């Protein structure tokens, strides 16, 4: 039978099954030319292998083996390995050092709790402050209604945390209904706010220098304003303010509602920012020093009428 070159090469390459191989061998035995060609193929193979095989017996460059070893180590790496080779002790030490110590965690947690506590306090003060200044910053963004609190410094809110919330007001057109006590001691008359009832009585009769510890109304100080009128800074459980006597009436120049926070007794009184704020305002209004005990008694006896001068 005739054997193609391709069959011969396949035989040389060991690609034929036993039956095919036997057929090629029979042809080779009968055909010297075919046998010579096979021999040439085998020599070529030997030559090529002789040329390239030595490369496979050269030592492999370290770089190649090292690359593979590094990959193997990477895959085998176990976190928290305690039995690292000596060469890695520095690494291991720095790894341990960089681990956050428990103390740090606790400190961080504490700082976080502190921050949250402050945040809650701020939120509380903020909402309380809102209570104290209704009408301001209305929902539709309108300017505060006339008669609303005209100034309320943001910084004030923090100082009022405990029991006092300010609605600091000035002028003559207050809507007192918002924070008036049930037995309102303030009346509106001719566009002015006038003290009445117990407040008017207290302003008229109490002395700052001599008042009982349990007095419902406290007179903080007495002074004369630029117009020469006698004025008094007062504070009670519901409000605090500055009242000046004009022809027998106590005109409220400034008032601040004292809104007790939840759980605080109405009687609970805190000499805090509200009074400090008023005292500062009084200082700005006053002409000369505050009245001393004697001057105050004299003014009282004369019915707080501004002396003619």
């Amino acid at each position, binding site marked *: 039978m005739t054997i193609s070159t391709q069959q011969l090469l396949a035989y040389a390459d060991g690609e034929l099954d036993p039956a095919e191989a036997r057929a090629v061998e029979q042809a080779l035995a009968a055909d010297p030319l075919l046998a010579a060609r096979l021999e*040439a193929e085998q020599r070529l193979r030997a030559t090529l*292998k002789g040329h390239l095989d030595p490369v496979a017996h050269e030592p492999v460059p370290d770089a190649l083996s090292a690359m593979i070893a590094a990959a193997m180590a990477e*895959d085998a790496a176990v976190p928290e390995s305690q039995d690292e080779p000596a060469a890695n002790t520095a690494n291991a030490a720095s790894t341990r050092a960089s681990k956050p110590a428990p103390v740090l965690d606790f400190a961080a947690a504490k700082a976080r709790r502190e921050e949250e506590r402050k945040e809650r306090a701020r939120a509380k003060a903020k909402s309380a402050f809102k209570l104290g200044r209704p009408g301001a910053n209305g929902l539709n963004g309108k300017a505060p209604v006339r008669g609303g609190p005209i100034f309320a410094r943001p910084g004030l809110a923090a100082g009022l945390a405990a029991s006092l919330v300010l609605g600091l007001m000035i002028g003559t057109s207050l809507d007192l209904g918002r924070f008036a006590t049930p037995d309102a001691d303030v009346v509106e008359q001719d566009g002015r706010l006038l003290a009445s009832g117990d407040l008017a009585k207290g302003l008229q009769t109490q002395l700052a220098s001599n008042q009982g510890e349990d007095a419902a109304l406290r007179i903080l100080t007495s002074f004369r304003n630029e117009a020469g009128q006698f004025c008094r800074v007062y504070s009670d459980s519901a409000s605090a303010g500055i009242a000046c006597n004009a022809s027998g009436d106590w005109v409220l120049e400034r008032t601040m509602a004292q809104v007790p926070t939840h759980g605080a007794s109405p009687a609970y009184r805190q000499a805090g920012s509200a009074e400090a704020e008023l005292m500062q305002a009084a200082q700005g209004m006053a002409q000369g020093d505050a009245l001393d005990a004697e001057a105050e008694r004299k003014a009282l006896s004369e019915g707080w009428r501004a002396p003619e001068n």
Partner: protein
Amino acid sequence: MSTTHFCTELTALLPRLRRFARGLTQDIADADDLCQQTVERALKSRHQWQDGTRLDAWVYRIMRNQWIDEVRARTRRSQTFVHEDEGLNVGTVGAPAAESLVELGNVERALARLPEEQREAVVLVMVEGFAYKEAAEILDIPQGTLTSRLGRGREALLKELGEIA
């Protein structure tokens, strides 16, 4: 399978890989570069290798594709460069015996003159000892195409090296 096993097998393959690289490139420096790139790529894709398949065929394929990319890039870079007789200038490396010096030079020249597709077929089957089926898979060609290229490559080599072979 564990990558430890993969790495052990790959390490064992390195001598053969270096031989194949030399057969493809016919240049010592190129072969070293090709080997390094191949191992890098194989390690990078080591998690994609499927256990139960032949690792050597998988890595040979990576190497061959890497080399084809390189050949194409070089062809683009220097179209005016003719390497026709470059084979005459190599072959002195490795200090072979004096009588085989000419012979080695001839073999390298003959291999270098083969078209890339014939050379890779010849080397895979005749030197690396892969079966037709395996070689065709490495080269991603039908087996008939492989045997065709193999036959033409052999013929050219016999013609070139006839007096030796």
